[in-house]
């Protein structure tokens, strides 16, 4: 069951589309539920599909296509590092190595304290700031160096 807050937000999104095109709001709805619950379990995808009145598999197609949706539990902070061509040429491998070494986890793994998770990201469309990463799909950090990463982790650890 979706929470009342989630429903309110989804209704806001639904209002942007014609009444008989509820499927159009699937991306927003999945995002809203993911933010609320941390990640998208199969039950969450089912909840969204049921609420929109679309086949469950249609919601799953969307949820599994975009890699900003998480179908597995993630830590409190999901750090997504872009590893596409521009970032790679600007040294994203080094950033990834450093992150993995510091946190002691590989891609798609969560640290034992449940705080961090590293993900491999696709191009975020800001190649001018390469190499870059974002935290929880929302906060982007550009022109990364290992020092910047350390500072970021420290800040997140505090918060």
């Amino acid at each position, binding site marked *: 069951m979706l929470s009342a807050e989630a429903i309110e937000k989804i209704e806001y999104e639904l209002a942007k589309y014609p009444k008989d095109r509820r499927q159009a709001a699937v991306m927003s709805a999945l995002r809203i539920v993911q933010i609320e619950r941390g990640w998208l379990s*199969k039950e969450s995808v089912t909840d969204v599909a049921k609420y929109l009145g679309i*086949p*469950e*598999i*249609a919601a*799953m*197609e969307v949820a*599994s*296509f*975009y*890699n900003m949706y998480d179908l597995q539990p993630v830590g409190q902070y999901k750090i997504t590092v872009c590893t596409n061509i521009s970032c790679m040429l600007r040294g994203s491998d080094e950033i990834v190595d450093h992150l993995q070494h510091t946190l002691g986890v590989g891609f798609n793994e969560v640290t034992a304290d449940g705080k961090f998770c590293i993900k491999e990201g696709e191009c975020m469309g800001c190649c001018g700031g390469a190499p870059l990463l974002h935290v929880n799909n929302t906060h982007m950090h550009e022109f990364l160096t290992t020092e910047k990463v350390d500072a970021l982790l420290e800040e997140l650890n505090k918060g």
Partner: protein
Amino acid sequence: MLNIEIDGKPLEVEHGSTIIDAADAAGIAIPRFCYHKKLSVAANCRMCLVQVEKFNKPLPACATPVADGMKIYTRSKAAVEAQQSVMEFLLINHPLDCPICDQGGECDLQDIAVAYGASGSRYTEEKRVVFNKNIGPLVSTDMTRCIQCTRCVRFLKEVGGMQELGMVGRGEHAEITAYVDQSVNSELSGNIIDLCPVGALTSKPFRYSARSWELTRRSSIAPHDGLGSHIEVHVKDHKVMRVLPREKESINECWLSDRDRFSYEGLNSPDRLKVPMIKHNGQWQETDWKTALEFAAGQLKDITKQYGGDALGVLVSPNSTMEEGYLIKQLSEGLGCGNVDYRLRQTDFRLDGKRTGTPWMGCNIQEIEELDRILLIGSNIRNEHPLLAQRIRKAVANGAELCIVSPLDNDPLMDVAHKVIVRPNDMVNVLGQILKAMSGLQKLSLCLPPTLNTLLEEIKVRPNTQKIAECLAGISEELILIAPKVGIFLGNMALSDPRFTEMYSMAEAIGGITGAKGGILPPAANSTGMHLMGVMPSATGMHARAMIEVPRKAYLLLNIEPELDCQHAALATDAMAKAECVIALTAYKSAALENADILLPIAPFTETSGTFMSMEGRVQSFQAVTRPLGECRPAWKVLRVLANTLGLNGFDYNSSEEVKNKIFHGEKPSALVWRSLNNNLKELVEIQINIKKEGLQRIGEVPQYESDPIVRRSPPLQKTKYNIRPMARMHADQLTELGLQDGDLVVAYQDKGSALLKVRLDNHVAKGCVRVAAAHPLTAGLGDLMGDITIEKASTEHAALYEKQLTEMA
């Protein structure tokens, strides 16, 4: 019209058509995987890339609309290079396991790789592996072979009405799957096997049993529902190996329902009766045809001589051919017996003798697509006629509005504009309301005859029926149609209802006001044909219901299992047990025929020639596709020889064609059909709109895969989700009223009989009703399909008995 050129050939094509349409029409081959003329365009396989002049890259022929003056090259250097590259891409991950693949020999990928591919691939990387999914007992998956054309996904979404498969993941990780281990439950699911251009989706029952080139293909007609779908039966060593659809745009297009596709597995059932059998002192003994026929003829003669022809009852399956129906009718007449009937699941016979002609669906199957408004009365259409449901779905997708009046709120997998879900008894009232509302609508100047007016006087029109009336009249929220094309159809539940006459008369009156097409949707392959030939009681004869209500001394059964095929199972069983002699012409040995005395093995539709007449009046003959199993003989031959043995005259037919010629008096069948099909009534029938009815009513629907003896014996169909033990299904409010809960064990009583059933919460059932499936041994003790029923909580003794029943059945 636009002028274009393909491969130097000047063509004139219509505005809006795509390159692939134009090429197909001109007979120019363009390879494709994802494109299918009946599905939306996905353009994701890229196999149909062609070169178009003035474009500096190849374009997909399936998704490129033609423009005037376009010059297209399908075999130019650029086009061939593009095709070869796409082929190489498609084969990157395709396992070359053709030797163990069921699709081998009829595989689009194989054929196109040979014709359009290069001789080798530059890829040496490891191929990806995709795990197989279990999507049910009908379709087998080998997902590593999938090339992601998404035809199956689009079919289930667009034609099946419910997207049950989808493509999850992205890029190299993309795969076709159902949602989290669910199965594909569409009643049209078998079509994805035909659509799959590779061996990713293959037929589970057919798997590893034959190669396509070993099979002989023979045409036939599907024998289960009233559509008369065209099928192609594939035979190897005189055994039916599989059934595929034959394309017939006006009937089944290129599809086939699962019932028609997989029922053939029942033809090879161990239950098949291979030799004639006679019961001697309660023991079945095998015998030869001569003895069996002489014994049968002797019994028939003795009984009709002693008690008169009236002592015999003849029950005929509406799935039998016209020839069989005609001969059994003649034979009964020869014996002076007027008790002949094919309407085994009907209760209300008040319209007998009042009809102008043979009732039919009132329009052509293809016409349904063009309707603007459709009213379905008492029909679970997906269960009854899956492909007709598909046509209605198409109409609805084109903007038609569907209204439903039914005791069941089953999802037809399409948008329903308005529905009224009420007890069968109240359906008459609802139809009356619609009629009254319609006569009051300002757009209509027509008034009702005074008799109807008085009947309708007391009826109060409710808002939702008012809406249906407005919808049928062409008024709806979004637009107003001045003269909408309306279709009104009565389904199986209406046909079995004790108040069918009322429903029919109301539907006819509504149809009269709206100028609607429509009529009944006869349940079986040859229901219409049986009516046309008058396989019905004579003026003094008894109808199917009376024959079992007032037991006869002897019965002659053609192709039926009485307790499963008759609408009152308990009476049927009882009548058979009481009879002195029951002669069954049957393809199967069956527990339901334990009370028979003589079993004569007849050939099912694959082993006999014959003719079916479909619900739209199409007369279609077919030939035997295999030779009869064991000592089985075509029923028309058995009836002929039986008549000869009885010493009756006029039974000298040498072939089923001769019988057919006799039926149609040597005329073209269409001429007789044209004169005969008519849904009008000769005279008004006394009807009552309001009958108070207290107590629960049964909705005794016949499940899709229990509809006739062949289907009942098809293991893959029996394994589907639709084959669930009959339960007492009720609405939540009804359960509260009765103090019951989901899962409780109850005793259901009808007349003298009863059945032990589990309770199931089902909010799709109208209040005041219990949905108890028919045509099942568990409910064989019950009575009328649409009759009164009482439900009581079961005792502990009952629970033990129920467990025993289950173990027995297993």
